């Protein structure tokens, strides 16, 4: 990841302080500080000839720009139109959908998943950005009867996680994904929840989806979770864990450095999307887990390595 000139010349501690205090101007803020959006954008020219008009509507960026100075807000869309189910064995939860602007989404209806999944997805997506998790852009529909989580359609994904697909271009993002799983107690990082898209030089780029089963979606349980880690029983096989240690530690340290005020705003936004209120202890539980993120991460990676043996 290349740093902006502003970041290169500013001591890290000063940068962090100025970022937290809001004195870092937008111009000085590295646009892709967490190494995410610059590589994940889908360029209109990269697709070559258009096989269809609708494919062209997939062109808006699939990952939004990180906002280093303020928590993100999840876009509320008035409605989307369904375009058929996403073919996936063992589940019929997801469907393709298109919004009024023509943007393409993968939709999960709350009537199928429950509001708990909506809450978990929202919280995960909001935290994904500062940690550097390569999660597709997201939005919600909150119209009565149509409540849904929307994950931006990534047009060139042809594979789920496979150790044989090729070298991973964004190991930092994959590592950050595991950190977020540990923090939110998400036991669902199986192969189908890591999407692979082609990258330069025969490599592949990983995208992380689906935090719907995270314990963070169950407020009372999460508030009492302490430092409980998610089960690794369903973890994708063959993850390059030995190569992820350093990146995971960096992401965990970013998590531990998150401003409590920003985290509180993040929790408020996630619960607003789920249209419920956090129970006592929820934000505190999340803040505690964030504060010990490096330790939680090391322990989680150890569990994953044990399972891999």
């Amino acid at each position: 990841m290349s740093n902006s000139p502003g970041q290169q010349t500013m001591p890290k501690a000063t940068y962090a302080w100025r970022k937290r205090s809001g004195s870092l101007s937008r111009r000085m803020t590295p646009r892709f500080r967490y190494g995410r959006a610059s590589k994940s954008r889908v360029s209109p020219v990269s697709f070559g000839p258009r096989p269809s008009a609708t494919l062209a509507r997939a062109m808006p960026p699939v990952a939004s720009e990180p906002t280093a100075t303020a928590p993100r807000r999840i876009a509320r869309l008035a409605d989307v139109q369904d375009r058929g189910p996403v073919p996936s064995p063992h589940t019929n939860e997801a469907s393709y959908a298109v919004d009024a602007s023509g943007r393409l989404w993968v939709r999960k209806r709350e009537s199928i998943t429950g509001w708990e999944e909506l809450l978990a997805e929202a919280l995960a997506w909001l935290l994904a950005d500062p940690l550097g998790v390569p999660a597709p852009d997201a939005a919600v529909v909150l119209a009565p009867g149509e409540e849904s989580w929307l994950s931006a359609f990534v047009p060139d994904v042809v594979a789920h996680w496979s150790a044989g697909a090729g070298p991973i271009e964004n190991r930092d993002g994959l590592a950050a994904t595991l950190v977020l799983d540990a923090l939110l107690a998400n036991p669902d990082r199986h192969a189908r929840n890591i999407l692979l898209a082609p990258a330069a030089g025969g490599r592949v780029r990983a995208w992380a989806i689906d935090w719907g089963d995270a314990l963070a979606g169950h407020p009372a349980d999460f508030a009492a979770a302490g430092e409980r880690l998610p089960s690794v029983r369903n973890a994708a096989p063959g993850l390059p864990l030995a190569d992820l240690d350093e990146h995971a530690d960096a992401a965990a340290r970013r998590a531990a450095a998150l401003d409590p005020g920003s985290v509180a705003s993040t929790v408020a936004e996630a619960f607003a999307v789920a249209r419920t209120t956090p129970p006592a202890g929820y934000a505190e539980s999340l803040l505690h887990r964030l504060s010990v993120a490096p330790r939680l991460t090391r322990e989680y990676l150890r569990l994953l390595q044990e399972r891999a043996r």
Partner: protein
Amino acid sequence: MTTYRLLTFVADPFSDFRIPLGALVRTAGGVRVVLAPTVVELKGTLRAAWDLARRLVVQIDTFDELPPFIGPQIVAGPVLRVPGEVADPVDWLARNLVHVAA
């Protein structure tokens, strides 16, 4: 009886734009993968996705259900029978796959 399933690359699920990718053939000796020739000009990211799809499908060794590493934009069609008079089903599919898929 030899059976096969056509594999298609769903280049655009919103318009259902599909390209024949190959076939899974279930023979007495196990599952074989036959790749289809590239019949449309693909460039850029779509070409890269196509190439990755071809790299992955040759690793498939199951017939009834695609392995977890196959993404939603690669789909397998219904089970079809190779005509009884065909002596070498794999060769027959390799020569006729695009025609069969059409």
